[in-house]
């Protein structure tokens, strides 16, 4: 398997910039395994990102890769997909990028149901800038910009994606490394807008403020809080409060944007 996935990586760009123990590398390998399992050619996949630790993943991936400005991966990806629909367009980016500064782009891309797959690295913080609170930082946690405790409620990313119109919504974590490639490949195979939220952690910036500075503890936290959807459903509503369901949470078929635009092209001809 290693040889199979190696070709999708720019080996000469390693070592990567991520801290030892970071979950981003786990998600990167899962992404590459997903591409390999689908048998996609390197020349037919484009990977777009924004700004932040996770967005640096594109530098290690041997495809056409685009490291855009903060929050703007989706608009660039939309332009690429519309201009060359034959390309498989994917995004790897973080929670601050996609859901704070890029939040507007996310809900509209989901609403259009354009055939783009977003792999969201959700570490609930801005790691690259030192651990400030993000739209997914848990209430009462400490951040470098919330020294007295965070007072905002975090986004339910998957709920938001579903409500905005995404037709494939799934969640996993970097702890569930072995299950992750399949979920990502299902997202890429889905014809429409797909979100795969991957719960991960930042033991360096976020962890040190929240008693999670040991990367193993971060993974254990994911193991204990991200649970299989069937197990989750069986929980009492009180037990559900600090758990997140894992797996495909939502999948429906709805007209996809590029297909609909093809109809516009047909109508314009007559």
């Amino acid at each position, binding site marked *: 398997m290693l040889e199979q996935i190696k070709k999708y990586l720019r080996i000469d760009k390693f070592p990567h910039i991520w801290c030892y123990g970071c979950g981003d590398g786990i998600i990167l390998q899962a992404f590459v395994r997903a591409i390999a399992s689908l048998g996609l050619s390197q020349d037919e996949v484009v990977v777009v990102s924004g700004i932040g630790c996770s967005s640096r993943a594109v530098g290690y991936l041997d495809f056409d890769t685009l490291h855009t400005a903060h929050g*703007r991966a989706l608009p660039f990806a939309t*332009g690429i997909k519309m201009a060359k629909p034959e390309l498989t367009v994917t995004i790897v980016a973080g929670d601050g990028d996609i859901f704070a500064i890029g939040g507007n782009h996310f809900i509209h891309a989901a609403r259009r149901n354009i055939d783009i797959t977003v792999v969201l690295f959700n570490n609930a913080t801005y790691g690259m800038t030192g651990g400030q609170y993000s739209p997914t930082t848990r209430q009462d946690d400490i951040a470098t910009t919330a020294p007295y405790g965070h007072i905002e409620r975090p986004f339910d990313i998957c709920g938001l994606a579903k409500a905005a119109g995404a037709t494939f919504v799934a969640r996993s974590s970097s702890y569930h490394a072995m299950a992750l490639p399949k979920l990502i490949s299902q997202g890429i195979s889905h014809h429409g807008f797909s979100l795969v939220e991957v719960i991960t952690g930042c033991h360096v910036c976020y962890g040190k403020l929240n008693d999670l500075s040991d990367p193993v503890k971060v993974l254990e936290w994911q193991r204990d809080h991200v649970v299989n959807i069937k197990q989750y459903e069986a929980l009492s509503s009180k037990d559900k409060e600090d758990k997140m369901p894992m797996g495909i949470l939502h999948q429906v078929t709805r007209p996809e944007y590029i297909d609909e635009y093809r109809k516009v092209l047909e109508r314009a001809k007559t």
Partner: protein
Amino acid sequence: MLLKDNQTKASFVQGNTACAQAALDAGVRFFAGYPITPSSEIAEILSRKLPMLGGKFIQMEDEIASMGAILGASLTGKKVLTSTSGPGFSLKQELIGFASLCEIPCVIVNVQRGGPSTGLPTSPAQGDVMQSRWGTHGDHPIIVLSPSTVKETYDLTVRAFNLTESLRVPVILLSDEITGHIHEKIEFPDKNKLKLLSRPKAVKNPGKKYLPFAVSKPEEVPRVANFGEGFRFNVTGLLHNDDGFPMNLPEKNEFLLTRLHKKITSRIRELCTFVSIYLNDSETIIFSYGSTSRSCFQAAKIARSKGSKVGAISIKTLWPFPDFLIQELASCVKRVVVCEMNMGQIVHEVQRASDGRFKIEKVNSISGSMITPGEILDKIL
């Protein structure tokens, strides 16, 4: 009304229509935009016309997204356009910088209106001259063209595409509410006879690593490939090496930024165009750009009829600023009167380039109405 294929008869259209027609004739195949007065006609026309040609139109969720979408489409090789006005132009600045650094061809039309903020949505102004040069952060190259008439809007739109494609520098067409909305007679050229320039093509060298941003001379335009053609390269808004990957080495940082600017500075004379009247013996020159030039040329004609040695210059390229033109004027004129619909922006460039060798006066309007020939004559006669 837009032209049917190969139609060259005279039409009576507004500047925004001429802009849309020129973009189509120049080969634009992707437009993303956001509604804003007084530029929306361009988007409306292209939403109808682009699909007829197999091109793509999308109205994005905001101005930033429109800019991002055209850059994504441009990276696949399409000629791309967006259009906006002041408030939207402010939002586009972020990714105009991305286009400058990553050398992504794109044309941005700003049909100026009164500002600041929401300002005067349906009244003309020329308040975005400095923003068009320095609106995005950091030292960056940019080309800005400014039309005065419907015909010039057509010609300069075609030129904007040629410049952005051949140099891989973003080009801004700085129109204004008057030029955008005025209806004039125009004879559209045969689009098949237009001279169109394209991007320097990327070449695959088997066994050699592809370097998208490599050049053999600093002023050369790199042969950046299109996405989806098997080159598999990286584009980043970080300062990058010629292989497209981030770097931070002082000498290489300096080389990259210098190279980006040399694409412009080495071509100043070919980039800067202007039109003039009575230049030969004028002691006073009325200096302007955009729709203000309409009054300036009229004022020069009236002044001549009264026996005054007055001429007029209308620059079509605002950025890079034609320093050489000002220096040449310094040898023959005594006074330059700079007319603009703002509190004085390009006048500072005239002052700088003139180095005190002639007297400079200003005529300005910030009322949302254009400068009249009478106001200019009051100043010069």
